[in-house]
């Protein structure tokens, strides 16, 4: 039975672990709660491993499928399945959850059970988003995961958390509701909520444009693309470290995944029709937002803008419509998941000691925290796209693909190698190097064992995928080929 229900287990094990944590939670003795949460997240990771080991890499279609009737009145099914795009993202999700639980170990002292449970439940819901093959099932997971994130930012966040979390929620909700209208419209056209049926549904261009726009509203907000990105810096800055990590590492990927799963294959003609505007928006994100990042005083805000800029690469890769670009986009998604997560954890390490995120409050940290600085510089280099780190692979693939399409796309995209290096390394210089900035910096303690383990694992990932990205490209290759074949066919009837 468990053979065929790997996806259900991947979703529900973390959710049930979260409920267990809530039920046994005791704020007076948070030790037990933390261990249960850690075990739950490890169990959640273990159940997703078969997705990697048993995945048939030659098959570009959906695997590990499960289907049950859920709401027959509207022909809604509990239908799960994954292809090569979803598997790496699911593994990233369950992996990140373990990191987040560990990262919140001593830092979170207030309502520990609720904190841990929120992340476990969120993990299950996000895996649900990646594996749902039914429109309404997808929508339910998509919206439901907002609730724990809303609470995480609002309860454990910084001083301006209420504004940030409500902005985050409403922005995302508004985008998603239009997507719901699109789903209902497609339902009335095909009498089904199956995504696969939508792929086959012929639609005139005007309808495709409407549907593409509705999905665009939902996914562009999530990625986020310029100009609907303004919620992200607020949410990142106010969120606790764990919240920032999940936001950057996974939630942003949901938007790009949505384009690949819904907007592009359901409305391929509209996607081609709007490819140029989409590329332009992506390039604005890459270049303009990089300049914005350069001007930031707050480390978290800087990394948040850097995330937007890097996600611009992903959308750029998707809308070039060639295999290299699309695979590059996927690699960039995974790599950014590790790097941005690691960067936010580094800021978290500093913030836990100094309670400040302002670059100006630091200086010369290397003198007191040498080990930590080594890690931080590695991640900063990866963020700037240094060859040998995973940050390089995705960007390089996308730039190569862009050259084939149009020289100027590639030229503008490549400026990020300079701008990215500029804002990241300038921040590193101001925070870590130079003379010891003030007496607080002089008293800093270097990494403890827990922090060392977390950052060490992430560093291995970043270097590993930088030197040997095959595990990801192998998984995605067949799916990307199949998707591009599908996208090349017009769906306009007649």
């Amino acid at each position, binding site marked *: 039975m468990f053979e065929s229900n790997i996806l259900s287990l991947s979703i529900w094990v973390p959710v049930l672990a979260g409920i267990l944590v809530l039920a046994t939670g005791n704020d007076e003795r948070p030790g037990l709660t933390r261990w249960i949460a850690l075990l739950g997240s490890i169990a959640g990771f273990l159940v997703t491993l078969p997705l990697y080991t048993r995945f048939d890499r030659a098959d570009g279609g959906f695997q590990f499928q499960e289907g049950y009737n*859920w*709401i*027959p*009145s*509207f022909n809604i099914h509990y239908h799960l399945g994954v292809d090569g795009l979803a598997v790496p993202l699911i593994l990233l999700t369950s992996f990140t959850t373990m990191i987040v639980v560990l990262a919140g170990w001593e830092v979170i002292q207030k*309502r520990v059970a*609720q904190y841990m449970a929120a992340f476990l439940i969120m993990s299950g819901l996000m895996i649900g988003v990646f594996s749902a093959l039914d429109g*309404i099932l997808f*929508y*339910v997971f998509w*919206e*439901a995961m*907002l*609730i724990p994130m*809303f*609470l995480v930012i*609002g*309860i454990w966040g910084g001083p301006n*958390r*209420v504004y940030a*979390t*409500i902005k985050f*929620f*409403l922005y995302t*909700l*508004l985008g998603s*509701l*239009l997507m*719901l*209208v699109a789903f*209902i*419209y497609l*339902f*009335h056209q095909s009498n089904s909520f199956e995504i696969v049926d939508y792929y086959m549904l012929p639609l005139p261009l005007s309808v495709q444009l409407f549907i593409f726009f509705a999905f665009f509203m939902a996914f562009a907000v999530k990625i986020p693309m310029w100009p609907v990105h303004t919620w992200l810096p607020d949410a990142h800055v106010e969120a606790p470290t764990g919240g920032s990590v999940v936001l950057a590492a996974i939630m942003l990927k949901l938007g790009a995944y949505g384009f690949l799963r819904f907007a592009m294959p359901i409305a391929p003609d509209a996607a081609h029709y709007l490819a140029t505007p989409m590329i332009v928006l992506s390039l604005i994100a890459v270049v303009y937002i990089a300049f914005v990042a350069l001007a930031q005083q707050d480390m978290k805000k800087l990394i948040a803008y850097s995330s937007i800029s890097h996600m611009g690469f992903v959308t750029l890769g998707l809308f070039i419509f060639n295999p290299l670009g699309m695979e590059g986009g996927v690699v960039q998604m995974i790599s950014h998941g590790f790097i941005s997560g690691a960067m936010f954890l580094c800021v978290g390490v500093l913030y836990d000691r100094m309670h400040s995120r302002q670059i100006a409050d630091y200086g010369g940290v290397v003198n007191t925290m040498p080990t930590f600085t080594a890690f931080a510089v590695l991640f900063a280099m990866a963020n700037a796209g240094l060859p040998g780190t995973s940050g390089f692979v995705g960007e390089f693939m996308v730039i190569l693909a862009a050259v084939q399409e149009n020289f100027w796309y590639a030229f503008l995209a490549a400026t990020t190698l300079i701008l990215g290096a500029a804002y990241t390394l300038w921040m590193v210089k101001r925070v870590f190097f130079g003379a010891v900035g003030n007496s607080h910096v002089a008293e800093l303690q270097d990494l403890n064992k827990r922090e060392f383990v977390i950052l060490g694992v992430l560093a291995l990932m970043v270097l590993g995928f930088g030197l040997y990205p095959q595990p990801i490209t192998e998984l995605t290759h067949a799916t990307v080929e199949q998707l591009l074949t599908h996208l090349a066919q017009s769906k306009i009837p007649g």
Partner: protein
Amino acid sequence: MMNNAITYDLIAALPEIFVLCMAMVVLLVSLFLSARTLYVSYILTQVTLLGAAFITVSTHIPAVGYAFNGMFVDDPLSDILKLMIYLGTSMVLVYSRSYIALRGMYRGEFFALVLFAMLGMMIMVSGQHFLTLYMGLELLSLCLYSLVALDRDNPRSTEAAMKYFVLGALASGMLLYGMSMIYGATGALELSQINAALFNGMADRSVLILGLVFVVAGVAFKLGAVPFQMWLPDVYHGAPTAVTLLVGSVPKFAAFAFVIRLLIQGLQVLTVDWQGMLIVMAVLSISIGNITAIAQTNLKRMLAYSTISHIGFLLFGFLSGSMNGYISSMFYISAYVLMTLGGFGMILLLSRKGFEAENLDDFKGLNQRSPWYAFLMLLLMFSMAGVPPTLGFYAKFTVLQAALQAGFVSLVIFAVLMAAVGAFYYLRIVKLMYFDEPQDHAPITPSPDMALVLGINGMAILILGLMPQRLMELCAYAIAHSLQ
């Protein structure tokens, strides 16, 4: 033959007859009870609801039966709505018991009035004739007016009752006027005869449309749709919370049935005419309800404006003018009543002697005082906002898909934008409960029955949100077997 007909009439109306008798028994018995033994009235009332449910279930057949010469109907729609009404009323009584006891309203009259109000709803649900419908409506309204004024030393309640009475009487007048116009045009008072007359095209159209306008206005008043919503916030705010709970919840089932009977069974031929009016009211209700709710600081008023916006969504199902639409409206109203019961139940839970937990700030830091109740309120708020995986999501989903099927694309887009506006004020409650520090540190000590029912009520929002199929089937069954 004659005897058989009378027997059938009596069986069809048996739940009503039973409730009527029991209401009088409760009234009489209460005279002989002292303050200490008054719980007998409470138990008798709950037994009445149980008995009525038993009778309704055991006389249920999946077919339409007319009684009293076509004035009264016993169909699956009426049976299922009545069962929902019993259940809702029973929950109202559980939630309000300690509240009214602490405020000197724990008297026999309270229970008798609730039972008579419920009888009015039952008659509205089963009315098949202008006179039965009107009689049910008036019985319900008169009981509600008196219940609002039950806390008679409270000037705010008295004022609310006065407003409710004056405006309610005006609306009844309009309704009656409209009915008389339609009678003038068609020569019939019975719904099926009116429908037949309209179908044959024998009625004078100008008189008919004038009558229709008045009927729709009267119905809209009872529902609380804009521009006939003025009474709603004041009554919700002014009435004792236990009575607000009653006014805001179960009578909506009766109002729903009222719309089905009048507009769909009686005036279906005029669908195009009333559709236009409903569109205007739906759009206005959703926008004014949601936008005004943002400015409220009193939770009861906020829920009143939220009700107005929910009524707007409910109208979306009706204005689709299809079976699919009516089913979705019924689903919506069921979800709405369940959410409202829970919402006001939470206010009652936090209220205690001499303290009304009706301001938004009273919910501050609830998560620290009681994570369980904060979680239930969180579910209720997200459900009202229509966020999955809660029941409220499917409620919105069903009405929107019905409207989209009928081709109202721009209306649906407008509605979802307004739903996003509405999410703001529900989120604010969650914010108060989870992100703020408590101002009030009193322990929350509900009676065991209330704790149990409120817990079930809250979890039902989640469980029905995960598995809405049964409730959808029930609504589909009721509508499909009752409307031809």
